């Protein structure tokens, strides 16, 4: 069967199992968009390539399947750099197809030419420049294989226009061997000696912690984690990327560690004698000052990516594996700490003394952002998906929303990308159409990609958007107060009329300034299922995120909520 390069690309996507993609057409990718018309693949027309990339990420995070973005060359491609970088840092499987100018004019500064392979080299897992139409099925199959295996990540396919117009004889690679990847071995056999050593360390531990990271969700290891944690009785902390990997309602869950983690999670790690890292990478937002991080702990590090071993902290036992397989193997050894009674007594005392806390709402005051999140959480069905941007609202959402299931929390962790939350929610809703999806965002980040409301309303992707609007860049405001002596530099954000913006983009817009309006707005939002809804919650700018460990400070110097400081 003879196909054009464009047809071969679309057919290859179908063969790779793609049923939905996000994208935006333009000159160099036009032949491929023409071929797309004859395909069963659903295409969501985005309004900006950055939004499209975050949608693909949201789709991938919510479903576990790779997200696909197709865009044109030059500015189309460069607009997608932020989501590619975001996906790289948070290990999100993404396949990005960029149109490219024809090979005969590449390098001549042709119209809409950008050297996207070079520009993205440091933020992709791999990239391909397709040089002839014959390569297309192999390249597409390899791109999906690389994006989804081992440590997942973004793969870029740069697709010159002339190649999309060539013809080729159709084939589809039938095995991994045909993908021509002599340098890629994503899985290695589990090192049973390391498992035995790890089991031995666990047997001897008196103050162990299961330090659960995003790799636990990436490898769908929640079931194995629950079984292992319950059998061994060890306490669990879940990082920002792992929220939902272990139920928040579970009594062994101490919450999130790190800069704005719970006092108990942060302090437990500091006091631990054994840290069992499961697909986490000792990020600086978790460790604080590395030299004083978990100073008494031996470390067992489970990671699919061996480069993470000893990168930040020297480990005692490294297990190169996906988290699910490693946990199963560890569980089979029957390993168990002898007695955790003293440890739990201490942990429970901390939990009792330093719970997450905010002052009750006062009549006539702006809304407490934490209260808004709890109110939405209470009104939502189990399994509701939440996405966020980065900043105070993100920390409040992570702290006060109770996550019970994996893949219900989508947040930009490593890159800390403002503008992620709204499009990620759209992508998640596309992947999970029967699930309610809330974007919880701040008034700063939301305007960075707010045009995607139009993409959502046009395609009937009925997300709900909670804007915690304090008319400030909240986290920067907090730092300028605490670290920069209250010198406020370019941090005030006079609010636009979010209701009008929402309505202008064919969504429902609601404004809530009082507690009664808040409850009414949430109720109304939950009743609307035929359009996206945006609620502008007017929140208190004086509210800060507690606890807090200052950047670069030791986790021992965690600062709790002002009301708990006398303790």
């Amino acid at each position, binding site marked *: 069967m003879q196909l054009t390069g464009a047809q071969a690309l679309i057919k290859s996507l179908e063969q790779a199992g793609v049923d939905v993609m996000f994208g935006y057409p333009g000159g160099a990718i036009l032949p491929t968009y023409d071929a797309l018309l004859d395909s069963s693949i659903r295409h969501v027309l985005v309004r900006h390539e950055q939004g499209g990339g975050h949608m693909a990420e949201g789709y991938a995070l919510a479903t576990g399947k790779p997200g696909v973005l197709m865009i044109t060359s030059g500015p189309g491609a460069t607009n997608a750099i932020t989501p590619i970088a975001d996906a790289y840092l948070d290990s999100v499987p993404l396949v990005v197809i960029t149109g490219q100018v024809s090979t005969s004019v590449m390098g001549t500064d042709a119209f809409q030419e950008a050297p996207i392979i070079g520009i993205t*080299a*440091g933020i992709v897992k791999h990239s391909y420049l397709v040089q002839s139409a014959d390569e297309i099925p192999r390249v597409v199959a390899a791109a999906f294989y690389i994006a989804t295996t081992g440590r997942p990540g973004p793969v870029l396919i740069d697709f010159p226009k002339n190649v999309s117009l060539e013809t080729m004889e159709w084939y589809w690679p039938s095995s991994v061997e045909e993908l021509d990847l002599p*340098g*890629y071995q994503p899985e290695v056999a589990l090192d049973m000696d390391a498992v035995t050593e790890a089991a031995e360390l666990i047997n001897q531990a008196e103050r162990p912690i299961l330090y659960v990271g995003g790799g636990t969700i990436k490898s769908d290891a929640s079931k194995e984690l629950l079984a292992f944690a319950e059998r061994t009785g060890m306490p669990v902390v879940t990082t920002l990327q792992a929220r939902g990997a272990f139920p928040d309602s579970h009594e062994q869950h101490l919450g999130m560690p790190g800069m704005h983690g719970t006092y108990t999670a942060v302090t437990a790690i500091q006091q631990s004698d054994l840290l069992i890292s499961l697909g986490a990478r000792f990020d600086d937002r978790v460790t604080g000052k590395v030299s004083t991080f978990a100073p008494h702990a031996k470390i067992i590090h489970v990671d699919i990516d061996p480069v993470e071993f*000893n990168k930040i902290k020297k480990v005692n036992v490294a297990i190169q594996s996906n988290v699910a397989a490693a946990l199963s193997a560890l569980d089979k050894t029957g390993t168990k700490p002898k007695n955790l009674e003293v440890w739990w007594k201490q942990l429970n005392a901390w939990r009792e003394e330093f719970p997450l806390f905010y002052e009750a709402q006062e009549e006539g005051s702006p809304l407490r952002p934490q209260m808004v999140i709890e109110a939405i959480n209470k009104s939502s069905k189990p399994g509701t998906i939440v996405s966020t941007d980065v900043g105070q609202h993100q920390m409040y959402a992570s702290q006060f929303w109770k996550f019970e299931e994996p893949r219900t929390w989508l947040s930009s962790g490593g890159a800390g990308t403002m503008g992620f939350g709204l499009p990620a929610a759209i992508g998640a809703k596309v992947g999970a159409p029967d699930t309610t999806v809330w974007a919880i965002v701040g008034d700063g980040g939301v305007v960075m990609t707010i045009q995607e409301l139009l993409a959502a309303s046009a395609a009937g992707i009925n997300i709900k958007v909670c804007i915690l609007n304090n008319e400030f860049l909240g986290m920067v405001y907090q730092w300028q107060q605490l670290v920069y002596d209250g010198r406020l530099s370019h941090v005030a954000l006079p609010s636009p009329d979010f209701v009008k913006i929402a309505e202008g983009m064919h969504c429902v817009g609601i404004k809530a300034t009082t507690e009664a309006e808040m409850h009414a707005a949430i109720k109304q939002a939950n009743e609307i299922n035929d359009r996206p809804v945006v609620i502008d919650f007017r929140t208190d700018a004086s509210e800060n995120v507690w606890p807090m460990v200052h950047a670069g400070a030791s986790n021992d110097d965690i600062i709790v909520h002002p009301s708990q400081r006398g303790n």
Partner: protein
Amino acid sequence: MNSHEIIEEVIHTPVRLHILSVKVENKPGVLMRIAGLFTRRGFNIYSLSVAPSELGARFSRVTIVVDAESAPLEQIVGQLNKLINVVEISDLSPKDAVERELLIATVPTHVDVRTPLLDIIATANAAIIDVDSSAVTIMLAGTPSACDDLERELEAFANVELYRTGRVALPRLGTPA
């Protein structure tokens, strides 16, 4: 190599330098990926040479001398290994490797410098590969330290144009792999 040369080599090569012999797929952009990785991760390249090898058209060998003080060697090797086009990495410590590099230099030849120059060429076991009325071009294929020595000697001459290729290396015979 005689024992004197071996001792010279070990003494003159700082321990922090490691030689990575990297087998890569012969694909466009592979050098960009390696160079970009070193830049992005803050690893220092001391020298780098790339050429086709006995591995055939499909693969090339890149010899990278890295400064293992800029980052732990484990990180450098690990991150390189993550590049999809990198197939295999052998880490050769200088004492377990035979290394050679090529130095070529064009030296202007006024009457008063000819004799000392000829002495240097003879002592260094270098060769004259091009001559005209005003200059000679010489070459030395030798150990990095021999090239260092020759380069130092040539500093005494004015207007020297000098290039070095960076080193290539193979495991010393009889060394366990």
